[in-house]
């Protein structure tokens, strides 16, 4: 019997019991589709977090004052102590480390910004010219903060794109003066629109030199120091150096927290990947269930078609051929089911992508592959028994319908 004839014969018998075939294909395709959609969701969440982190900057190390490992209450806080401030000089001292490429000190506060009659509340960041590179920001107009002495409090500012739009509408705003709190700043540049990154909308901030920010908010400490290591491999060395330099400068007391973006990222990556696998695994169970359904359907088919099997034997079909026919039927069933499931899954993924454009939902290739192998695998595995049972039938009894 030729291969094409086997397929045609199997297809004809599938067409012969249309409802059953369609239901089976539905079960199989729902299984495959759920694997595809759920892993795409998990993978999307993972990518989302990874993207968010890398938009913060690469090889990034974040230093903040206080000896808290994560955001929480340190023992010092309970005793009413305030952690020692990080100073601008601390930040500059970090550049002594050969593993550190550049640093950007960060001071943060909120202030009223006004221009003519317009005014609104804004987040004001105090930093240096290096911030642009460290944070991977880009300019839409003009220039970023000027390089030079970090202690000089020049009255210049860089606006987020939304702030510029609100204050100046059609005009570029470059060269104009705005008022922040009680001081006047000249606009020298506008950031290009980047949207939200880690809950921080860079479109709605104003950046001024760090020394000016200290004067504006009447402080001297830093909120964060952003450190960029020279390379990915140098992150550990840079972290070590930073801790050592700051401990030395703080009279031997380790009172800062150094967090590498890599470590945070790796943790998120692990958690989300495990989540994706778990969800995908649960979906795969439905595939196994579909496999058992296929077995059941094939067993019913065998008992319903006993006479036909007897006839095929009488007409000269050896047991191996009967096995092949039933096997082909199951493979066809799960094959069509997988393809339908893939299409269904991709439609689902597209729909989610349309609903939540921020989430980069793409079914990972390994999940698609796993879904198809599982469905074909279960289809094949669970058809072995019914096919063998059909082939073993005694032709005389089968012809009599027993």
């Amino acid at each position, binding site marked *: *019997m030729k291969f094409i004839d086997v397929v045609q014969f199997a297809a004809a018998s599938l*067409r012969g019991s249309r409802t059953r075939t369609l239901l089976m294909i539905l079960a199989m395709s729902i299984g495959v589709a759920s694997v595809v959609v759920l892993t795409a969701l998990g993978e999307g969440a993972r990518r989302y977090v990874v993207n968010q982190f890398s938009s913060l900057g690469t090889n990034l190390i974040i230093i903040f004052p206080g000896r808290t490992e994560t955001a929480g209450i340190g023992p010092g806080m309970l005793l009413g102590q305030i952690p020692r401030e990080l100073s601008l000089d601390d930040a500059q001292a970090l550049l002594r480390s050969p593993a550190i490429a550049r640093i950007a000190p960060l001071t943060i506060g909120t202030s009223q910004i006004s221009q003519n009659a317009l005014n609104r509340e804004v987040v004001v960041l105090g930093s240096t010219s290096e911030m642009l590179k460290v944070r991977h920001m880009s300019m839409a107009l003009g220039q970023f903060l000027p390089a030079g002495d970090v202690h000089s409090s020049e009255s210049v500012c860089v606006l987020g794109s939304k702030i510029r739009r609100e204050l100046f509408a059609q005009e570029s705003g470059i060269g104009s003066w705005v008022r922040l709190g009680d001081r006047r700043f000249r606009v020298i540049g506008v950031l290009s629109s980047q949207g939200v990154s880690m809950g921080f909308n860079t479109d709605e901030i104003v950046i001024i030199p760090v020394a000016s920010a200290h004067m504006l908010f009447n402080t001297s400490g830093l909120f964060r120091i952003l450190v960029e290591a020279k390379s990915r491999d140098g992150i550990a060395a840079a972290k070590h150096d930073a801790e050592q330099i700051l401990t030395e400068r703080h009279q031997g007391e380790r009172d800062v927290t150094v967090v590498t973006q890599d470590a945070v990222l790796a943790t998120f990556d692990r958690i989300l990947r495990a989540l994706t696998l778990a969800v995908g695994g649960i979906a795969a169970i439905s595939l196994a269930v579909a496999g058992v359904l296929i077995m059941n359907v094939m067993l019913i088919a065998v008992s319903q078609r006993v006479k036909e099997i007897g006839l095929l*034997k009488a*007409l*000269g079909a*050896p*047991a191996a*051929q009967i096995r092949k026919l039933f096997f082909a039927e199951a493979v066809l069933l799960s094959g069509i089911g997988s393809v339908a499931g893939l299409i269904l899954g991709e439609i689902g993924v597209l729909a989610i992508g349309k609903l939540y454009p921020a989430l980069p939902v793409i079914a990972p290739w390994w999940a698609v592959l796993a879904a198809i192998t599982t469905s074909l695998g279960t289809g094949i595995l669970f058809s072995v028994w019914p096919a063998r049972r059909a082939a073993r039938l005694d032709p005389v009894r089968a012809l009599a319908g027993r």
Partner: protein
Amino acid sequence: MIALSKVSRSFQVGDQQVAALRDIKLNIAAGDYVSIMGPSGSGKSTLLNLIGLLDRPSSGIYRLDGGNVTDLDDQQQAKVRSEKIGFVFQSFHLVPRLSAAMNIELPLILAGIPPAERRARVTELLENYGLTDRADHRPDQLSGGQRQRVAIARATSMHPAVLLADEPTGNLDQTTGKEVINLLEKLVEQNVALIVVTHDPAVGGRARRQLHMVDGKITDELGSRLRGNDDQ
């Protein structure tokens, strides 16, 4: 062509051995027209199944076309069935979801004959059996006579040397039954050995050799002496 010597077949029923065939000795030549008659349970269907290689004897030797086919394995038996034996059943045994033409084509598909040749043979068979205008009808759209004609066309599609018919007229009325018998008898003229199992003396009586079976034995043979092939 068919030579059975000392063939027995017994079945296990509960804890008892029931002999369905006892020491059957039978020779059938190409172009023979044999009817097997006898009461129910006399073993005539078992004999037919043995000849058709659907069943195996418990003891004895079965030779077909000079070769010993008693102990062939499943694959080899299937090949012999495919090439040398055609079956016609009382209940037609057509595949319900396939058209008349597809049903006739089935043995050719199973034998792996190329599609072009298959189509030619099916067209010819449809024509020979007056089924050309019924080619695309499914079995449930055909009359009993038409169904049996499809079954005969299917049985002859591989040009078998032996045609085994188990009560071929059992489900048909007198007229169509006669038509079917005529079609089968035409095959004898083409040197096919026709073996008919039947209850109906009117059908069985037409055969040149008429075997009577009782309790698993051939008790009586009419017509054989006329042909003089008893000791073949």
